[in-house]
């Protein structure tokens, strides 16, 4: 053994599995309505009356099975946002990307959206937005291409 520096061996390790994950019956209904009808649906708890978007099978507060679907206009109010300035391989668009949480009219919770047709420095919490759907839709939240400013 000598003290002469030996470059350490670095191995490359990868995750080799991809995953096939069901979104469940509630998620399927929500995403199929977006894909086939360009409709954003909420789901209402019969116990506390809250309307959830994105929907869950059970109310997160009451743990009651929810089955009452509520059709929403898609218009809503921005509750918060950020402008992501860095690039990562999992991002669906080129940065800068404006990510927001939008509380849709008639819903008690907010949904994630990418904001578009607006400059980052013009975005303000409380602004009104509406969805713009992709022409080709696959049954994913990304079928909403972006939310644009609206009345």
């Amino acid at each position, binding site marked *: 053994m000598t003290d002469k520096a030996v470059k350490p061996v670095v191995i490359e390790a990868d995750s080799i599995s991809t995953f096939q994950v069901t979104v469940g019956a509630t998620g399927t209904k929500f995403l199929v309505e977006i894909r086939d009808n360009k409709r954003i649906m909420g789901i209402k708890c019969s116990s506390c009356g809250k309307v959830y978007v994105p929907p869950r099978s059970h109310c997160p507060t009451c743990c009651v099975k929810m089955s009452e679907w509520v059709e929403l206009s898609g218009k809503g109010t921005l509750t918060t946002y950020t402008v992501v300035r*860095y690039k990562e391989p999992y991002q669906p668009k080129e940065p800068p990307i404006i990510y927001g*949480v939008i509380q849709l009219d008639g819903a008690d919770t907010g949904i*994630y959206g990418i904001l578009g047709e607006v400059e980052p420095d013009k975005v303000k919490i409380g602004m009104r937005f509406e969805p713009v759907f992709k022409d080709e839709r696959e049954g994913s939240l990304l079928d909403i291409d972006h939310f644009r400013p609206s009345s």
Partner: protein
Amino acid sequence: MADRVGIVAVAQTKFDQKREEHLTETLVHVTKDVMGQTGLEFKDDGTGIDSTVVASQDYFGGPGGIHMHYAYTVGAYRRPDERVEEDGAFAVAYGAMQILSGHHDVVLVVGHIKESVCSKNQVENLGLDHIYGRKIGLDFVAAAGMQAMRYQHKYGITPEQCAKVVVKNRTNGKNNPLVMYANGITVEDVLKSEMVADPIRVQEAKPVPVDGAVAMILACEDKAKKLTNKPVWITGMGMCYDHHELGYRDLADCDSLVSAAQMAYKMAGIKEPAKELNLAEVSDHYAYQELLWSEGLGLCGKGEGGKLIDKGTTSMGGELPVNPSGGLLCGVPLIVAGMQRVAECVLQLRGEAGGRQVSGAKTALAHGVEGPAGQLHCVITLEK
């Protein structure tokens, strides 16, 4: 049931990039350190360390299987060995519960992470739900950006107040020889630094990548008193999870931290935390979080985190110094973060915190957090 749990030894590595060191070497280093401090070995007959609790994150193992390494590396295999895939403060709490339940008397707790093996952002993207959050490309930086924006908007917290947290902690860190990112940064420097996820600038985020580990030994009261003449007692513990869906929460209010803190204070008999605590080590992954978490911990009123930093209450020499160690903004790995907060409190209460010592400290609070925008919190109160 055991009376009290005492922390009898703590060890920390330097927090830097350990690209040329396999994590097993890091683990041996901190484990041997706390074993040496106490003279304890792994034993089956109740005369040594009864069990281990290890906190880490599988993806930082390159990738997966990170928890396979600990027990065989330190000579603790074929024994009780629990794994915590959460912030390290939770591991301390679980270790303490093993003792309070009477199941074990002496527990060794370790937290370790090598952020340098992979992309922290890519791993944290996997921390969002796979149907919506992950699909749309969110990660913990973006989640923090949305939380900071909402917090500043709702309570009028200013960018300057957030920048002051960076200045305070990077100054405090100059007295901590284990951190790499302490410096004399100014408010102006922070506010001129590159925007990462509005309103968060690069100097307001925990430096990445940082590698390191922390270990500590917990013991039941009678054994703790025999193992050291300076035991530090865990007086309260609380933990709480919020919904992972960011749109289901008001991000400007950290309700789950309020619950975790109240649980810990109730157990500790603390009525007025701002008056009864001598210092707090709070997980500041981002500058705004020290202010928001201070509110959740009841160190000030709701929306008053900005005033707290303006008044100098949380500075060294203030009434309640927060992050005398320099906090995460001086560079501490995630997961290790919460356990390192506990370790720093122990050093403070033993009077062994060197240049960062809060004089006369008798009570302290350590806080750990995980998940997007502070989804889950763990609060531990300590006294000497």
